[in-house]
């Protein structure tokens, strides 16, 4: 994560310990993937009570970009900064593979350089990636255009075959109302350099570049 921001996007980046993080010193924050607190009880629920998350909430309220990737997305949900819940994958297995995402809205701090309907290639690597929310809440999310990416097949259809984990509505990423907070299960930082990407693309970098542009404007 730090490597991509520093060396691919060329933005000043610091890795900050969760007890030392203060919101005022930064233009944006990225909560990376991993296994905070060993994923005990539920992924992200214990880290959601870490002192850093109070600071992250303040940044979100100030309209600064907050990006949660994989475990970072789970933490944002458990901190109730983003709505919903995560369940174990339908297959009950850890899944690590390249998938295709379709962009559903360009109106967020992280998708301004991506057009609606554009397909991005990225890997997923998770055991608890089955996003869930009840039908009424999903309708509201869809209506307010907060579903940002869905898992799709090569034709761009959100088919059940293209759904790697059983996420409701093939949801891979959602945003808050203002569009300055994004949670995404796939890993854009692992798809930001052609050398790491089997299709030699750098789709993931579009998300970070959009974020950097948002900060500058």
């Amino acid at each position, binding site marked *: 994560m730090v490597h991509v921001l520093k060396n691919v996007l060329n933005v000043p980046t610091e890795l900050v310990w969760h007890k030392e993080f203060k919101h005022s010193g930064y233009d944006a924050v990225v909560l990376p993937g991993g296994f905070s607190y060993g994923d005990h*009880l*539920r992924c992200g*629920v214990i880290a*959601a*009570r870490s002192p850093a998350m109070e600071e992250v909430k303040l940044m979100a309220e100030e309209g600064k970009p907050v990006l949660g990737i994989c475990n970072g997305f789970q933490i944002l949900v*458990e901190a109730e900064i983003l*709505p*919903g*819940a995560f*369940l*174990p994958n*339908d*297959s*009950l297995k850890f899944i690590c593979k390249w998938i295709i995402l379709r962009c559903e809205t360009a109106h967020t701090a992280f998708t301004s350089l991506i057009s609606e309907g554009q397909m991005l290639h990225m890997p997923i690597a998770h055991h608890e990636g089955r996003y*869930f*929310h*009840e039908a009424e*809440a999903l309708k509201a999310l869809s209506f307010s255009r907060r579903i940002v990416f869905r898992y799709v097949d090569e034709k761009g259809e959100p088919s059940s075959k293209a759904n790697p984990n*059983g996420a409701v509505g093939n949801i891979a990423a959602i945003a808050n109302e203002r569009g300055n907070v994004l949670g995404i299960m796939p890993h854009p930082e692992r798809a930001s350099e052609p050398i790491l990407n089997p299709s030699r693309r750098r789709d993931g970098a579009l998300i970070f570049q959009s974020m950097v542009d948002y900060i500058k404007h």
Partner: protein
Amino acid sequence: MKNYTVEVVIQNKPVARDPEGETIHRDLLLKGGYENVKSVRAGKYIQLEVQAEGPEDAEKLVFEMCNALRLYNPVVHTSRIQVREK
């Protein structure tokens, strides 16, 4: 103050699939000949030893912590609390 054992059982809401329960049902119980089993739901069990004035207080305490610190996620889970005196 007395000591109480409080049990918390967390399950997916009926609206959320439970593949673990489905697998136990389909691939273990039905294949093992237990055709009278019509459905299985798996969940998480947490046992707490707490001190409280009475069983109602023990239940209230655990109910509060379940909600305040999200021992379960109300979006997708139900939780059931049961108190036993030691």
